[in-house]
């Protein structure tokens, strides 16, 4: 099994009034900023999935994004893989070593 850490970024769909984005935009002149426009404000959730493969983990995150983390009527989401840690768990069931320098995990990090 491997651990996959994802971010799910949720934003109001194009064409849906985003009063928070608008409020932020209206505050910009107070900061003497005049060259920023089209502000949208959403939310971000980060979560770790333990699964056999990245495809399996992503399918679960996609379901969660659709059913729970966003409302598809009004919001769009994008899934981002932050980190994947594969640990070779022995048949004897020894828990995977944790912490940096552990020899059992190959770690891939994407920004």
């Amino acid at each position, binding site marked *: 099994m491997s651990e996959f850490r994802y971010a799910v970024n949720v934003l109001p769909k194009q064409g*849906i*009034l985003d*009063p928070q984005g608008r*409020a932020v935009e209206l505050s910009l002149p107070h900061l003497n900023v005049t060259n920023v426009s089209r502000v949208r404000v959403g*939310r971000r959730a980060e979560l770790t999935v333990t699964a056999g493969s990245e495809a399996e983990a992503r399918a679960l995150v996609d379901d969660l994004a659709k059913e729970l983390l966003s*409302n598809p*009527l*009004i919001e769009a989401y994008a899934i981002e893989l932050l980190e994947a840690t594969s640990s070779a768990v022995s048949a004897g069931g020894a828990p995977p070593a944790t912490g940096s320098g552990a020899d059992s995990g190959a770690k891939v990090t994407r920004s």
Partner: protein
Amino acid sequence: MRIGVVTFPGSNSDVDALNALAVAGVEPVSLWHESPDLHGVAGVILPGGFAYGDYLRAGVIARFSPVMRGVSDFAAKGGLVLGICNGFQVLAESRLVPGALLRNRSLRFASKIVAIKPQRLDSPFTHRSTGAPLHIPIAHGEGCYYADDATLDDIERNGQILWRYVRSDGTPALDPDDPANPNGSLRAIAGVCNTAGNVAGLMPHPERMSESILGSDDGMQLIRSFVDSAKAWETGR
């Protein structure tokens, strides 16, 4: 006859709803969010408040609570369900009624008395209405009704728009910036029902105008409609 009111963690109008049902002459039953058992009630109210703190989005965590399994099954069998304010948000997130409730256009929590007018008088939730505007309170931060144009056309055609915010002359406050439209709702929609007509939600609080001592009993036109229909449904089973 017994009618249930669900209490979620964060519900705050459940006791008002229980009281309004008692005023209507039925036995109010408190239903707890952790059990899908509806104890044989003839109708269910999802009350106002902030279920599960309104975390993530208003109503979404409540959607996955055990009691909502019972409520969905009950609704699928034709049982009457009324969602008030946060209860409407729960129904919308559960996709038991069409549309979604967005942050108020003003970005402000709106707490005041508004005028809403029933759009048809032959529904289970409006048949005891006089047809005149009802003056009842709202208290919400996310009540701006939204659905895409195709859905709005559909629900309009199907008669699923049960209440609209109206101006003092009784005409719908269709402009989202009209002061009589308190949250910017599209087509001035204050409440809708599902296609079958047995599940309805609205943002205003009829249960808070259930006795003249509270200022008015306008809300009882709605509550009595619901109670009568639930009685008829139970008798017809």
